[in-house]
């Protein structure tokens, strides 16, 4: 088992990448500014900080996938294109060691990035408001990490399935569109498409729960729901549309299901990516 050697080499290389440090610095500055400029309307210090992280979650929803995809899309495709994989596999490493080693290393890089963003935001928030709702911050960190981990898994898996840089880029951009943007752009969203197919093409009665269930397959929607799990009740958001205020969502649309959505998005791409890499001619 030489997974650790693969991870260590990859992480050392990542640590020396100037581009990565530049991105991390930019992200830290960004979260610092958000934390600096944020003021809650008629809220106490603690509530202000919670509200700040809630808002930050909205930014992270679009930002973390980019961070994770950029940090991971070349993980294996890059080695295949450059020929680095010939050394990796000329030494006593299995393909599994290479795949998992790359995954662990890129997860570590992304974890460090998120930790840095949280550290800068928290420091600024505490300095400005004098309150630290540790439970909420820690909870937000965990769900944000899970959300980013989904995209690391997706990117490493796609990276394992393709042999060239150009395809890896296309796959990463495509997954950002398919998993994030298509769920938020008004006019071209998945929600409208499903509604159109179901009602207009197939002629069914409107079924809000069905549309919600389709929406819920997106890691982004799952992230928004998962945030409800870690903030106090008054800060929870609805995320999925309901027929009326009094209407309650079915259990399969509950906030907890978001963890299942994450789990599926972690497991399925990794399994497929590994399967493709294991069988590939390198």
């Amino acid at each position, binding site marked *: 088992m*030489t997974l650790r*050697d693969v991870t*260590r*080499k*990859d992480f*050392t*290389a990542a640590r*020396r*990448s100037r581009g990565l440090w530049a991105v991390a610095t930019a992200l830290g500055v960004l979260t610092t500014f958000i934390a600096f400029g944020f003021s809650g309307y008629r809220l106490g210090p603690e509530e202000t900080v919670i509200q700040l992280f809630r808002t930050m979650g909205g930014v992270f929803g679009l930002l973390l996938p980019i961070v994770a995809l950029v940090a991971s899309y070349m993980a294996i495709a*890059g*080695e295949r294109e*450059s*020929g*680095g*994989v*010939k*050394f990796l*596999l*000329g*030494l*006593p*490493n*299995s393909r599994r*060691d290479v795949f998992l080693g790359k995954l662990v290393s890129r997860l570590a890089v992304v974890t460090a990035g998120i930790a840095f963003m949280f550290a800068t935001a928290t420091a600024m928030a505490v300095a400005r408001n004098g309150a630290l709702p540790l439970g909420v911050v820690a909870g937000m960190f965990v769900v944000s990490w899970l959300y980013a981990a989904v995209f690391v898994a997706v990117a490493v898996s796609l990276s394992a399935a393709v042999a060239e840089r150009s395809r890896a880029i296309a796959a990463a951009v495509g997954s950002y569109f398919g998993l994030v943007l298509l769920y938020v752009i008004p006019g071209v969203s998945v929600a409208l498409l499903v509604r159109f197919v179901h009602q207009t093409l197939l002629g069914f009665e409107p079924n809000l729960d069905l549309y919600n269930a389709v929406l819920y397959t997106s890691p982004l929607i799952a992230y928004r729901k998962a945030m409800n799990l870690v903030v106090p009740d008054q800060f929870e958001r609805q995320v999925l549309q309901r027929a009326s205020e009094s209407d309650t969502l079915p259990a399969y649309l509950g906030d907890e299901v978001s963890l299942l959505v994450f789990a599926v998005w972690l497991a399925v791409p990794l399994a497929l990516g590994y399967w493709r890499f294991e*069988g590939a*001619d*390198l």
Partner: protein
Amino acid sequence: MTAIQTDGLTKRFDDVVAVDDLDLTIEEGEVFGFLGPNGAGKSTTINLLLDFIRPSEGSVEVLGRDAQTNPEAIRERVGVLPEGYGFDDPLTGREYLSWAIRTKRADDDPDELLELVGLADAADRLAGDYSKGMQQRLAFAIALVDDPDLLILDEPSTGLDPNGIQQLRDIVRERAAGGTTVFFSSHILSEVEAVSDRVGVMNEGELVAVDSIEGLRESAGGHATLHLDCAGPPTGLEVESLSGVAGTSIEDHTLVVDCTDPAAKVDVVTHVAARATVTDIRSETVSLETLFNDLTGGGRDEARAVEEVPQ
């Protein structure tokens, strides 16, 4: 004990057959030169040995193990100098080598190995900034880690200067003397000739000859070419009628005679000298080269590259 054994090994890429029904056995302790023009299927064969790619048909065994079942166990005992590699991580030469040593759980001293391949002064520079020849030296050093039982070297002299090629040969001979099996590919005959116990010639995916250098020489026969520069045009000399002469041609004042038997050369010279004024004589014994060209398609472009590529 066999180091490498392939049975009916075949690899197809789409509709191209890169390796066609290859049966090859390399015994432990021998230095085997794998010869052939570019695109003959040498690297594909090596990639199959290392499980970088998977066979379409047939099987590969390396050091008694199936190449696909447990490639890591094979990689423990094999040193690889691949082709088409890249040092793209921002690591120094010493760090790359240390990584290889750690991964092999070996106890080599990275500086000793760097010294051996002539990179001691560049140990702390990024491997990605090395010249092609220096990268080749580093890749060779990585292959030498943990004194492997089998060295698989794909075009090892690529990018090396004459001094580097000499060092490479010395190290290969030294390791072979210590019992290491060496399997190396090349498109340069002289290089293979210099170190190999046995040679396999590949052409268009097929193994067209396997023999020792001496064996190959014998099967090439005593083919020799004689160039006779004459004072006037050497016409009407009837050299063809002599026994042992396969053919003649005339280029200006030069008579070129292809002899199948070396003994015929003297007869040719005596015959011509009696009938014309000979100003110079050159004799070429390009037997192996001629054989190699015959085996790999003679006058085709890729075969010619064998003679012309300066290495």
